[in-house]
């Protein structure tokens, strides 16, 4: 089943007042959306909380209009980005306006979640941080159980048995999930790095 199809089914179940679907939606998207907002709003927990709340509330009211043309997370990010832009516009008179190079319209929503690194970082740190950010963004772009499974395996070092227990699956099913998650990660991560390089090349050419 494609991600979009799974997302459409999830939305359909939510519209049918399926509480389990609501739980799935919140558990799957809230942490990722929170990170999306956090990378763009900085360390301002009250604003992040407000923006994420408003975003999810608006999404809830618009659920009926979700057609599955894009992944649900991308759709949520679009709403969230609009909220952030509105917030920045409101606060423009007493805040510095933040412009991220990744906001170029031709860069896909996934790249949107990256923040610009500070320019005085040493090259080595810069590359490491950039890789780390890219990986974290890629994990957030995956279906929640894929991203979680990979993070548990490679970041926390959990065994397959431990991951199986967390996913509530058997060992064979968990191995299958991990294999599919890795393939999906390769696709997303590859696309992210390619888009980012293309976007930066584009910026360089226009200067």
């Amino acid at each position, binding site marked *: 089943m494609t991600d979009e199809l799974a997302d459409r089914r999830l939305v359909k179940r*939510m*519209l*049918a*007042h399926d509480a389990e679907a*609501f739980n799935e939606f*919140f558990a799957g998207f*809230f*942490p990722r959306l*929170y*990170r999306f907002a*956090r990378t763009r709003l900085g360390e301002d*927990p009250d604003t992040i*909380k*407000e923006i*994420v*709340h*408003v975003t*999810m*509330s608006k999404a*809830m*009211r618009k659920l009926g209009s979700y057609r599955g043309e894009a992944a649900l997370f991308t759709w949520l990010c679009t709403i969230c980005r609009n909220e952030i832009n509105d917030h920045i516009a*409101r*606060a423009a*008179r007493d805040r510095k306006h933040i412009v991220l190079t990744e906001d170029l319209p031709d860069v896909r929503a996934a790249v949107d979640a990256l923040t610009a690194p500070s320019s005085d970082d040493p090259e080595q740190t810069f590359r*490491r941080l950039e*890789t*780390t950010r890219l*990986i*974290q963004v890629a*994990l*957030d772009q995956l279906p929640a159980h894929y991203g979680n499974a*990979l*993070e548990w395996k*490679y*970041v*926390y070092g959990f*065994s*397959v048995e431990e991951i199986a227990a967390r996913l509530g699956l058997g060992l064979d099913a*968990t*191995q*299958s999930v*991990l*294999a599919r998650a*890795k393939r999906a*990660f390769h696709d997303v991560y590859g696309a992210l790095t390619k888009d980012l390089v293309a976007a930066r090349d584009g910026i360089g050419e226009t200067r």
Partner: protein
Amino acid sequence: MSDEDGSNESDPLRDLFAHVRPRAVPPEADGAEIRRALFAEWDALTGRRVLIKRLSAAAAAAVLIAGSATLLLRMSTAPAAVVASVERVRGNVEVGGAALAVGGRIPSAARIDTHDGQVALRLDGGGSLRLAPQTRLTFAARGRASLDAGTVYFDSEAGLTARGLEVRTAFGTVRDVGTQFVARLAGDSLDVDVRDGRVAIGRAADAIDVRAGERVSVTIGASAPRREAVARFGPEWDWAERLAPPFDIDGRPLIDLLRWVEAQTGRTLVFADASTEQAARDTVLSGTIDLEPLSKLAAVLATTDLDYSLDGERIVIRASK
């Protein structure tokens, strides 16, 4: 051999992830708060939608069985009267053992138990009744309730209430006289704090009058009630503020929102000068935003040329710098 069987060899991802830290986890309290609010909104939105669908589908069948239903209704006892509806709910709040959701209706004679949650009710006779955690209350009829445990806050909303509220307790009956008050059962005593207006506590032997800014404590075995001053704003009222009913700002002048915040917080609204007050009257708001009173004030004022500060019990409105 597949890496998923536990072997760590020949896995390029392991090197790639070598310096990756866990992704940031949202603060648990924020997640819980947003989840509660979102669930209530989702429940109200989709519950109503499903209900409409079901009602449409059932319409034809309803016509067919209408005669039988009428007969059955005549034979059955009358249903309990609806005395209130749910405006906000946080956590697990039950009525008659069933979970409450926004938009839910409260019948008389059904006990509400907030457990660890909180709920704000819109009384059918008018006014906002809010129940703190660990509260048990039963409506005997419209405008009449029995408080078995816990704390309630009632806002008659500047005299708009047609019927008022009477809260019966083991220590006496609390009657509002156009007011905002808290009634709190704690062990062997009943505390009544009045924020605005006046409240009467009726007992078998006498009646006690409680005025704005006062707390009266009625204790078992005490010869007389204890009377003391109480702040009309601040931490003790926070829980009730958080349950303030939604206030639709769209198309309304800013001054309406300011007066609403003033009423919900128990503070006094003050303008820095006449031109600021005029600006508040002239500014018409648009959009929707659902936050707690002071958060809502901050969010709305951020879109205008006005700002606010708290000065003791005052909310001071002035032009932005």
